[in-house]
């Protein structure tokens, strides 16, 4: 029983971080209508940036959020502007052009990082990297718990932003009906780039938060991109609440898979859930939420 609870707890903690990645992707999908297969790679870039901040400036990974989030926001803003937005509405035989473009971007990001940092595994050793604390009999991985709490904080801030600020509302409006939003005077192009940047910033945050727990290498992006869209499909495209549910679900499912099946099949769990959802619950868990 203890093992079960422990597994669930671990799943929830990592799920919170997955949710952050998922929210980023679902926003991009909802507003731009693009499936961003470079999402995990953006996170990977953020992790390298965090790594540099740690090694060169001695900045704690959690602090480096203030660096990585804006940095990736700007990088992605311009990627969106010059590489993705021009493709919207362009007619070509293959409608999946945008998706393929993000694949190209993903490759470029990965290779650039590989070029700068080599393929070697990097990691960040902080004072608290190995710490754990106990609540009753359940152990909590310290950095993961802190990451989880910060992730919640960011998510709350995001909701505030989306609900209360003008830009946030503009983003939601564009996500619901692009043409109507334009007619209301919203600069659709800028909102689109801004959303790509925002989605990237959230993922960047997840990256910085994950660095103390994960090994870093250039090909890290791939699996996380897959996780991101599993979450997005699971939660329903464009639904932030859905992404949170999806992230938690994936985290718990993976954790259970790792404990009760095997470590190797952990990744398969995500893929299977993904296929099942695609086939049996079109629209994702969003169906069961109101937002």
């Amino acid at each position: 029983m203890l093992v079960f609870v422990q597994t669930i707890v671990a799943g929830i903690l990592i799920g919170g971080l997955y949710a952050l990645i998922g929210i980023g992707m679902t926003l991009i999908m909802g507003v731009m209508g693009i499936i961003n297969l470079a999402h995990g790679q953006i996170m990977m870039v953020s992790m390298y940036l965090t790594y540099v901040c740690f090694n060169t400036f001695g900045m704690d990974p959690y602090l480096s959020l203030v660096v990585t989030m804006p940095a990736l926001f700007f990088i992605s803003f311009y990627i969106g502007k010059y590489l993705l937005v021009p493709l919207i509405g362009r007619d070509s035989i293959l409608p999946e052009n945008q998706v393929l473009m993000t694949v190209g971007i993903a490759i470029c990001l990965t290779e650039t990082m590989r070029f700068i940092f080599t393929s070697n595994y990097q990691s960040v050793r902080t004072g608290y990297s190995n710490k754990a604390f106990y609540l009753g009999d359940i152990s909590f991985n310290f950095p993961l718990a802190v990451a989880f709490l910060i992730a919640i904080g960011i998510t709350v801030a995001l909701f505030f932003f989306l609900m209360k600020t003008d830009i946030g509302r503009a983003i939601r409006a564009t996500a619901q009906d692009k043409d109507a939003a334009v007619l209301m005077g919203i600069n659709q192009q800028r909102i689109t780039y801004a959303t790509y940047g925002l989605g990237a910033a959230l993922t960047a945050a997840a990256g910085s938060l994950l660095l103390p727990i994960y090994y870093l290498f250039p090909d890290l992006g791939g699996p996380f991109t897959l996780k991101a869209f599993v979450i997005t499909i699971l939660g329903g495209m464009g639904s932030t609440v859905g992404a949170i549910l999806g992230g938690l679900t994936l985290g718990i499912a993976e954790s259970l898979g790792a404990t009760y099946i095997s470590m190797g099949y952990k990744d398969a769990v995500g893929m299977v859930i993904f296929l099942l959802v695609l086939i049996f619950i079109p629209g994702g868990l969003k169906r069961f939420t109101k937002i």
Partner: protein
Amino acid sequence: MKSSLGLLKALVVLVIAGIVPLFIKQDYYIHLLILVLMWVIIGSCWNLISGYTGQVSFGQAAFFGVGAYTAGILFTKLELSPWWGLVLGGWTAMILALIIGYLCFRLRGPYFALATLAAGEILRLIANNWVDFTEGMVGILIMQTFSSKLPYYYLVLGLAACCLGVISLVMNSKLGYYFVSIREDQDAAESLGINTTLYKNLSLLISSFFTGTAGAFYLNYMGFIDPSVVFSLHDISIQAILVGIIGGVATIWGPALGALIMVGIQELFRTAIFGLAPKWVSQGHAMAFGILVVLTILFMSNGVVGDWSKIKRLFIRKSPEAAS
């Protein structure tokens, strides 16, 4: 839609392809040609289901890997020669295609693409973990039958010719019209009497058959396979897409050209432009692909063959009437 002139062109190419390796002394270049031919098959098959039928697949690795492992497992479990895989690999791939088709064709557009991606990944993970059946990450090793590369070359040349021949025949028939109609507007197609489910599956069956056979060939030629190679998302599935889009989606010769370009670029970079560029360039071929993808999609989204007239106009100044 080709004419008899196209058939003549194809025969000429075939004859040249048949003669050329007899004049090549170094085995390594024959190896490159074999790679090109393999990618001609994989790319053309992707093109059939994605470019012509409009169902973009991100999971061709599933079929390639299944074909390769058919050959491998026949060897490890039944002690049959892996050459039997060449006969059976296509068939197991088709069985997989029926399953994937049944599960995934109800999805449209990007959702279908992602589902095929997931399928490929699931198979890779199964191959990795079902050690008793597939030897897991250790992979399968066989003794190659021929020491010379030439027999393999002619074999894959024959396969590629078969593949392109079949695709060409198909596209010039009722099937071809139906595939393209499904791509253009699936709902309209259905209302015009086209059983879209049936034809989508047919397209995938043909596509998977040759891809699986190519996979079986790969094992016999290279002598070794493991899940990370033959079920690879990046090296097989995505590469197949790149071959297709760079060469020209929805054209017969596009993927063939794409295969040539891809292997060519890979070589160019591996040798650091034949030794002329600094050493670090040799690591750059993946980056080059990335950039090539980005540029192709931005400027030449119908590939070299598809946008040929656009490209010609860049280099040749003609009067406006003659330009089209």
